[in-house]
């Protein structure tokens, strides 16, 4: 069994990998959902758009489910405190996601235009709302979240849903929505042709620009106006987790401490910006597959930027800073982390293998002719 400190670090990385995997895989079908009412002008075009992700959205959504399960298993205190604290935000995500399975599967089973348009907007909500809220949630992590623990580690959240929607958090929500929509647009460029592809390319131009601008603006705002958190007491990585055993202070510029200490981490924000431009250039020159992976790297860069700034914090408490949740003191036992590491190492490669196979089998451009020929079996 690995030592406890290494396991804690590995699990910080693995949760990051799951988040990034979720953003890349479920992200592209959410982006497609957001763009659906705009890049598909008539019913056939919309069916083309939907069928680019038709066989895959369900598998992709499991990144979200498994991410939830993994946070439960590896960071139970985070799972408990964040999801109960962000209660209405979490419910909004769940309810938005409700539209997806039924939207995809039921939409084309009835030909009534009102029915189909209703589900198109359902798929829009299911695609646009979750990334917006996840971005807003990250924005709030940087500002600290008003929660505290009692002696028995019962958490109480003292904020409101509306307080989450502050300007900085909304800017972060814009970063994440633009990122996911951009990613979906690039995917559509890869899987469609003609008019739809052209509209997707234009969307990629717009959302890529918006993503870079808002990402840089959020960085500047964080630098100028948002104090970070620092653990003041000595950190013992091998200690049994107890979030109340440390002292924490707020300090201006602290969110940039890791970048100062390890300048190599600056590659992450650079990757976030460069990935967008590379994806746009590649998509324009017709190398859409490479563009998809460039866009995926941009996602790695953006999420990595946030993670590296926050480390070792996961969820700082603005109400009682010492109760802040960190990678050292909100984790599971050594045994559970170890078992979960093995489960991930065994199954993740298998998952990637059969997901890749599924995309290969269903690969190629989705066309209006395909939708017409398969009108009883396609979405």
């Amino acid at each position, binding site marked *: 069994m690995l030592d406890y400190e290494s396991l804690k670090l590995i699990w910080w990385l693995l949760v990051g990998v799951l988040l990034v995997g979720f953003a890349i895989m479920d992200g592209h079908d959410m982006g497609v959902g957001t763009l659906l009412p705009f890049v598909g002008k008539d019913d056939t075009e919309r069916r083309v758009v939907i069928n680019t992700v*038709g*066989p*895959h959205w*369900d*598998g992709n*959504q*499991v990144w*979200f*489910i*498994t991410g*939830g*399960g*993994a946070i*439960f*298993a*590896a960071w*139970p205190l985070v*799972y*408990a*405190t*964040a*999801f*109960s604290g962000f*209660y*209405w935000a*979490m*419910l909004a995500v769940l*309810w938005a*996601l*409700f539209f*997806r*399975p*039924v939207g*995809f*599967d*039921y939409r084309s*089973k*009835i030909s009534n235009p009102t029915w189909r348009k209703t589900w198109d907007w359902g798929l829009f909500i299911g695609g646009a709302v979750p990334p917006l809220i996840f971005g807003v949630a990250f924005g709030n992590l940087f500002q600290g979240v008003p929660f505290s623990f009692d002696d*028995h*580690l*019962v958490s*109480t959240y003292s904020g409101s849903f509306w307080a989450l929607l502050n300007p900085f958090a909304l800017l972060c929500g814009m970063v994440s929505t633009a990122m996911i929509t951009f990613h979906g647009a690039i995917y559509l460029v890869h899987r469609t042709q003609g008019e739809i592809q052209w509209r997707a390319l234009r969307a990629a131009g717009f959302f890529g620009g918006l993503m870079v601008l808002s990402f840089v603006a959020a960085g500047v705002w964080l630098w100028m106006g948002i104090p970070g958190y620092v653990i003041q007491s000595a950190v013992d990585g091998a200690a*049994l987790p107890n979030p109340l055993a440390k002292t924490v202070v707020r300090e201006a510029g602290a969110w940039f401490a890791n970048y100062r200490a390890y300048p190599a981490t600056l590659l992450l924000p650079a990757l976030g910006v460069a990935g967008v431009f590379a994806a746009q250039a590649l998509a324009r020159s017709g190398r859409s597959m490479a563009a998809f992976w460039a866009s995926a790297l941009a996602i790695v860069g953006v999420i990595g930027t946030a993670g590296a700034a926050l480390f070792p914090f996961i969820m700082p408490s603005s109400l009682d800073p010492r109760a802040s949740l960190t990678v050292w003191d909100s984790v*599971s*036992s050594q*045994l*559970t982390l170890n*078992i*979960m590491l093995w*489960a991930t190492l065994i*199954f*993740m490669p298998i*998952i990637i293998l059969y*997901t890749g196979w*599924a995309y290969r*089998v269903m690969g190629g451009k989705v066309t209006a002719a395909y939708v017409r020929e398969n*009108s*009883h*079996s*396609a979405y």
Partner: protein
Amino acid sequence: MVSEQLVDLSRLQFAATALYHFLFVPLTIGMVWMLVIMESVYVMTGKPLYKDMTRFWGKLFGINFALGVTTGITLEFQFGTNWAYYSHYVGDIFGAPLAIEGLMAFFLESTMIGLFFFGWDRLSRRQHLLVTVLMAVGTNLSALWILIANGWMQNPVGAEFSYVTMRMEMTDFWAVVFNPDAQAKFVHTVSAGYVTGAMFVLSISSWYLLRRRDVEFAKRSFGIAAAFGFASVCSVIVLGDESGYTVGEAQQTKLAAMEAMWETEPAPAPFNLIAIPNEAEMKNDFAIEIPWVMGLIGTRSLDKQIPGIKEIKARNRERIVSGIEAVTALDALRRDQNDEAARREFEAHKADLGFGLLLKKYVSHFDQLTPGIIEKAVNDTVPRVAPMFWSFRLMVALGFAMLLLFGLALWHSVKGDFADKPWLLRAALYSLPMPWIACEVGWFVAEYGRQPWTIYGVLPTHLSVSTLSVESLYGSLAGFVGFYTVLLVVEMYLMIKFAKQGPGSLGTGRYANEAHA
């Protein structure tokens, strides 16, 4: 102290969302194997009829699956949103099977289902069959891991409490996986799913036969459903949940409550066929007993005793008294972890910590304890008898009714004359809701029967909730029920529409009610 209203609303919301979810899950679990059978016959014989069967029943399967996914998302996150203290207290053990379910099972199932629907023209016959089999394996593995998690709530093995981290921690992963309670639950639950899938196909096929349309298609479907359903219903009954009932104390308590067994009877105990339980006086006002039967099904032996409710309560009273010491020592340890005296005291009473926590429903500090409060907590340790007694009997009665139906269906399917037996076809049609009712009632028995605990003997339900406002709970409960109900209506509409249209909806040109492009 947590308000009772908050606890009740949190329970209600969990019950509602879980019961909605389980309207869809058993059909998925069962139908997926029927699809495997149908497609296997197709691959072996090459007859297009079997491909059409796989695709048509697959279409209905898909309509159901969509809502299974929708309602399932909630359950993965609701422990965090509404049961925060539970999630912290047992996440170290309970989270692992949920995460492994995602990695090992749900990814597989969800990726393959895409290929099942869209891959017909892009995969060879054998490849497509492999996809269907993997989808079925994924579905069933998914049930396995979820029931390992649920089984641990009933019989929490392989874990220990740590006063430093203030939670339960895993000590033996394999004990959690091979928990006999979880294994018994898995077999019982997936078999119930198989019965549901079989009943669905049997009923709808019977309807086509009664109307004398798509006869060949319906006859083959009926035959497969009859055989698969008969085997499954035997499995549900013989390998019932009961095989796990002697394992843990949770199950003993549940057994006593659902049998309205107040006294410990000499082995082998009689079975109360019908009784009128009297909660206040702890006796049955009226009972029809069948000698020996309870002892036989409960213990699978002639000489092991099954404890009655009075004996269970007496045992629990001792544990609560000892639990008071455990909680008091724990509080001291939380103030100062180096308090040696408190640590010794805690170790001595640690096993009863959960029982001490039961008192927190009534008092936040133990200096306010009175004998009356302890008595209330003792009475809480056994769930109310009447709901348990009757819902269990309803489930069992439905099980035997389905055994009879599938027995007759199989008999006449072997003789080959079922298509001319309108009474049988009509019985099969009207029996359609039975497996769903049995499944829902079964879950009620399992979960209500574990009260007042979320984790038996470890964590009381009233301590498990998130500290949310009652208003939030009203809002979210209304949201869930409203949203789910709308979706359920939409689902039923589509299900009925396509079931009525029948295999003609595939647009192959071979059936009645052909779809137009």
